């Protein structure tokens, strides 16, 4: 499905490239042995080098290099055996060195790709231009003291991976799918926690438009620091339409950096940043030798690669007899995939039912209550697995299973305890169900007549009545059999 914006003189398509900054999961910072942990007392996790003190020499953290290589492999990318650190020069209060140590013309990871799924279920390959290692800056707090900005350097020097895509995306949806996939990959690899609202994953979008069918690349604008996937999609939509309006009115688009305002759902111009070559990149003389990724390291990282979402989905289909679509949706997020497998460890649990309860019932509950991590639910994996086992052995019906979930969330009780307490066990006793059926048949003579006359749809009505009378506890198989006998 292509995303087209109608202009006055022609239709436009959108060209999007994303730059994503991922904070590397490591104990210490990229070039110092201060803690990379976020939060804590301000300026507590700061080595002299992170504060830009003179006479200090940066030494690169081996593990951060490994994490970058691992992420590169996860993105099917070329790992560069030799890369070089460069200084990117600019002045800002939270960058005490006056330059950021980054990588410029020789990044550690070169071209790669990832595959996203489009709305129609087809797959699109999005190119990765590069991944490079660099330092994060500190944090400025502007609203604590009048007339002053307060600087906390705890984040200064923490390792970042900047992952740059090719301008291969052509709709807000594709950009959202790319970012979702990238986040899933880094979470699977445990190289970044991917939490956008905490700033450990940050995204800038480059957006331009062009007449449909043309191959030109028009002037692009960079939208900074969009801190959720939803905002990213909204920001791109606004920005693309702004470009089309400008071209419609014969105006020009200037290359600039813009900020997204989530309340107004619009972008506005930031004060013009210096042009790219004004960063005056040059190889960092403190890190003059090339960063070498040895064959041993590459081999070690290759051997440590975990099972990735696509492989996991294939295994889920084979092992748990669920559909391909269910398997894909379960494995998209590592936490959900782990939760599912834990539930399946319970004796007698059923794959199909467990998948369904996770993807439909629990997913709806989580989105209503804004719960991000499935492990925060009171319905633990073990409890869910046991519930589906109880459905399988006929102790409870599927409808009761669904109703149990909100009760567990509310009370934090074991499913077996709630079933006992509320008397939710499935009734399979034919005698009891028979009595109820007889009463329903007696109470609805008109429906019985119509059913017997051939209106078979009414069968569902009778099943519903029995379910209602038994509060959903009657065994559907027993109801069906008895009803068929009685109504024939």
């Amino acid at each position, binding site marked *: 499905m292509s995303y087209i914006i109608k202009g006055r003189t022609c239709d436009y398509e959108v060209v999007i490239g994303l730059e994503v900054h991922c904070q590397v999961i*490591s*104990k*210490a910072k990229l070039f*110092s*042995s*201060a*803690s*990379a942990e976020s939060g804590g*007392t*301000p*300026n*507590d*996790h*700061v*080595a*002299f080098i992170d*504060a830009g003190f003179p006479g200090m020499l940066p*030494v*690169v*953290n*081996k*593990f*951060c*290099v490994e994490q970058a290589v691992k992420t590169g492999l996860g993105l099917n990318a070329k790992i560069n055996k*030799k890369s070089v*650190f460069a200084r990117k*020069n600019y*002045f*800002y*209060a939270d960058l005490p060195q006056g330059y950021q140590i980054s990588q410029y013309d020789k990044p550690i990871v070169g071209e790669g790709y990832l595959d996203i799924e489009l709305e129609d279920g087809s797959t699109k390959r999005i190119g990765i231009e590069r991944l490079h290692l660099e330092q994060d800056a500190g944090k*400025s*707090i*502007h609203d*604590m*003291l009048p*007339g*002053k*900005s*307060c*600087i*906390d*350097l705890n984040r200064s020097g923490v390792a970042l991976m900047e992952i740059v895509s090719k301008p291969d995306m052509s709709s807000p949806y594709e950009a959202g799918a790319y970012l979702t996939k990238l986040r899933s990959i880094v979470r699977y690899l445990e190289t970044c926690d991917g939490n956008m609202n905490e700033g450990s994953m940050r995204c800038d979008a480059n957006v331009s438009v062009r007449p449909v069918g043309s191959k030109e690349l028009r002037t692009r604008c960079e939208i900074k620091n969009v801190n959720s996937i939803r905002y990213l999609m909204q920001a791109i939509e606004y920005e693309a339409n702004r470009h089309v309006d400008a071209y419609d009115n014969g105006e020009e688009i200037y290359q600039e950096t813009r900020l997204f305002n989530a309340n107004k759902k619009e972008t506005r111009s930031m004060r013009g940043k*210096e042009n790219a070559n*004004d960063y*005056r990149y040059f190889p960092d003389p403190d*890190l003059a*030798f*090339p*960063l*070498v990724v040895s064959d041993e390291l590459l081999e070690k990282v290759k051997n440590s690669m975990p099972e990735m979402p696509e492989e996991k989905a294939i295994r889920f289909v084979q092992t748990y007899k669920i559909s391909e679509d269910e398997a894909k949706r379960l494995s998209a997020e590592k936490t959900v995939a782990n939760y599912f497998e834990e539930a399946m460890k319970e004796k007698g649990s059923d794959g199909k039912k467990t998948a369904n309860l996770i993807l439909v019932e629990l997913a709806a509950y989580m989105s209503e209550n804004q719960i991000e991590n499935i492990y925060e639910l009171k319905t633990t994996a073990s409890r869910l697995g046991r519930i589906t086992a109880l459905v399988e052995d006929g102790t409870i019906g599927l409808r009761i299973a669904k109703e149990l979930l909100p009760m567990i969330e509310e009370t934090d009780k074991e499913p077996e305890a709630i079933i006992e307490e509320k008397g939710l066990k499935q009734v399979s006793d034919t005698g009891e169900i028979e009595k109820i059926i007889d009463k329903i048949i007696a109470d609805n003579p008109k429906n019985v007549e119509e059913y017997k006359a051939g209106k078979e749809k009414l069968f569902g009505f009778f099943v519903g009545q029995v379910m209602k009378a038994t509060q959903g506890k009657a065994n559907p198989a027993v109801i069906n059999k008895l009803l068929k006998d009685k109504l024939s």
Partner: protein
Amino acid sequence: MDTKEINHIAKLARLKFDEGSVEGITKDMNDILKWMDILQSADTSSVDNNEDDAQELRQREDVVKISNLSEDLMKNAPECYEHYFTVPKVVE
């Protein structure tokens, strides 16, 4: 380099020159660049520049060794508040 370029670089480096001194600095910079040209013209074709023999970047283990330096860090700061460095307000 002309005075325009000097002024641009000075701006990027947050340096402020008196009007009168820009010309002198431009001349100095050009003299320095001339020296660089002389260095560039040296014949280095016989120097072994095989990258394989070059040294590689030293790396360290991922271990946290430094903490609670904040008092030492703050000692030299012109202004602090609680545990923060403070600077003139950066944004409006």
